[in-house]
């Protein structure tokens, strides 16, 4: 396999592995926790190294994942004192743990050959140099296997515990009543997130892991309402972002991980603007239609309210309506014209009058809006 292909394969695996648990992070409104975890795993790696003295030891991954869970626990402990808000707790815990990690690395730089830059920023381009060799046979880049195992773990966990995750995300109280112990589900998910962050950081750097965890799920969130579809779409979007990101990076000769993050952002922006139902364009169009629809109901109701009263002539005169409702002239004309075409109103000596049809529509509208409550 060529290095280019290997890099793309790793990029896709990492992106998909990150996107899956990310879906639940986004839905549980815990996106910023992923930011926190991706920083603090550095401390886990450093501490793990002190124990094993081996940068490639799997114990490092365990230590880092554990540190992720500890981060979540510390943050929750702090915010549970009610002395500070939850977001403030996040913003206090992770810089502290991260600072400790940086200090340890600098102090013992002689014995730890750990480059902070590569942990935080990552460099996918170097991944193919680290080979997996079994029995003297080169079977591909090591990263492929590490991230592959990670993806497998995430997939299995989410498929097995799909029901539990769904209930605990949607309604923790209900989950508790049903006996699913939301706290267990919560920490289980956080362990997955930490593991993923640890597995992914060598490839893409820990800060950008956040982009891959949050980006595809948020994009998918604008496209679907179904949780399963959201998971599938997130995975797919992650893969697409990975490949497009690599191609762009290769074209411009820039950081691969950074370019993957930028592509993630651009894809989100496109979906944000053009998504079929929730996109900016379609919601602006809908709002415009709604405004007209709404103005028609509004006007009919206005006429209905003043029908037969003394002020009718002053409230419902063709020229008075716009001053009363504070609409501009063009808009008022437009609405009046539409209503007349629909046979709801007629003009009678400069006064707008409801037709029977109009009266009926108005009463119907009124009933519909009442029954909504």
């Amino acid at each position, binding site marked *: 396999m060529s290095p280019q292909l290997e890099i793309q394969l790793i990029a896709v695996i990492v992106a998909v592995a990150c996107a899956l648990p990310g879906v639940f992070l*986004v839905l549980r*409104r*815990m*996106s*910023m926790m992923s*930011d926190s975890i991706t*920083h603090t795993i550095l401390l886990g790696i450093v501490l793990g190294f002190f124990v094993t003295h081996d940068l490639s030891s799997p114990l490092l991954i365990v230590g880092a994942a554990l540190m992720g869970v500890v981060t979540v626990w510390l943050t929750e402990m*702090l915010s549970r*004192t009610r*002395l*500070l*808000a939850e*977001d*403030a707790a996040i*913003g*206090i815990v992770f*810089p*502290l743990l*991260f*600072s*400790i990690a*940086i*200090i340890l690395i*600098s*102090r013992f*730089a002689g014995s730890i050959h750990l480059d*902070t*830059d590569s942990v*935080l*920023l990552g460099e996918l381009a170097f991944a193919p140099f680290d080979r997996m060799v079994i029995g003297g046979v080169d079977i591909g880049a090591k990263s492929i296997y590490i991230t592959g195992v990670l993806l497998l773990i995430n997939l299995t966990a989410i498929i097995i515990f799909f029901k539990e995750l769904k209930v605990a995300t949607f309604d923790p109280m209900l989950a508790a009543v049903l006996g699913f112990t939301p706290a267990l589900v919560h920490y289980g998910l956080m362990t997955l997130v930490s593991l993923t962050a640890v597995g992914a950081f060598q490839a893409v*750097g820990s*800060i*950008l892991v*956040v*982009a891959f*965890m*949050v*980006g595809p*799920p*948020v994009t998918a*969130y*604008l496209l679907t309402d179904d949780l399963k579809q959201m998971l599938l779409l997130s995975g797919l979007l992650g893969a697409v972002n990975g490949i497009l990101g690599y191609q762009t*990076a290769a074209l*411009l*000769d*820039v*950081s691969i*991980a*950074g*370019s*993957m*993050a*930028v592509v*993630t*952002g651009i894809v*989100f922006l496109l979906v*944000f603007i053009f998504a079929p139902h*929730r996109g*900016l364009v379609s*919601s602006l169009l809908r709002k415009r239609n709604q405004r007209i629809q709404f103005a028609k109901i509004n006007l009919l109701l206005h006429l209905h309210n003043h029908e037969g009263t003394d002020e009718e002539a002053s409230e419902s005169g063709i020229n008075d309506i716009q001053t009363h409702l504070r609409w501009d002239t063009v808009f008022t004309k437009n609405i009046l014209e539409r209503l007349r075409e629909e046979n709801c109103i007629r003009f009678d000596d400069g006064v707008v009058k409801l037709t029977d049809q109009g009266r009926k529509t108005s009463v119907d509208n009124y009933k519909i809006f009442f029954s909504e409550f």
Partner: protein
Amino acid sequence: MTTFIALLRDYTFQTVALGSALLGLISGVMGSFAVLRKQSLLGDGVSHSALPGVVMAFILLGNKNTEILLLGALVSGLLATFFIISIVRNSRVKFDSALALVMSVFFGLGLVLLTYVQKIPNSNQAGLNRFIFGQAATLLKRDIMLMAICGSVLLALILLFWKEFKLFTFDSDFAQSLGFSTKKLNLMLSFMIVVAIIIGLQTVGVILMSAMLISPAVAARQWTNKLWVMVLLSSIFGAASGVVGTAASSMVSKLPTGPAIVVCISTIVMVSVLFAPGRGILHRLYRRKRNKLLFKMEGGAPNVPSA
């Protein structure tokens, strides 16, 4: 002791310590408002998002002056804030997701630009990296001047509009009903917070900046129930940890300044949360125990202690 005195006479130390103290002071003041407005994490978002602005300013203007780079940081920080707000306002994406997405994408863009700059021949790009981790040691006298000027303007504005900011932070609807423009107040306060974040980047870097904004304010909040005392204490805590962190990193070899400052301020937070009279955890535990005792002895409801 003699090393300490020698240190105090050292010109570099004076510069760096002054810079860190200024940073702590400014972020302590502005952070109080950010925390009370429940915008703690905005600092994290804005500081990460500043990176592409720094590099872009360098690419476009080919200049490594701190003012220019920080101006770029300011623009991209504000742009990111604008994106976050528009995403939240126009879609069902929640604030935390929008924040996480925008800041990581911006940071990614920053990396792309950095790697791009490295490929331009003859562009001495060394030193741009310092905004990621912060390098207090590179602070120059003119950087201090810049910080002092920005800081004075911010402080003056806070003093001038103290009443308005207090009212707006506590109850914005009421402020509007009194005829104050909450739009203007919101814009002004947010802008000032962003400026405070940007001037700290050089010293502590994009990753640790959020701690400088949040921690002094959270610590100060535990000791007082008055806003002005909180803001004052917060600035003192911020400045003190700036100086102590700098001193520690000068006296201990291989101790980076930014992280040292953050550990310092975090220690103050922990002490405050545990030991502050009235609110602190220990005081609460003690009160609970005393109440239980009273309850047993008098066989009735305990007197609620007045503060």
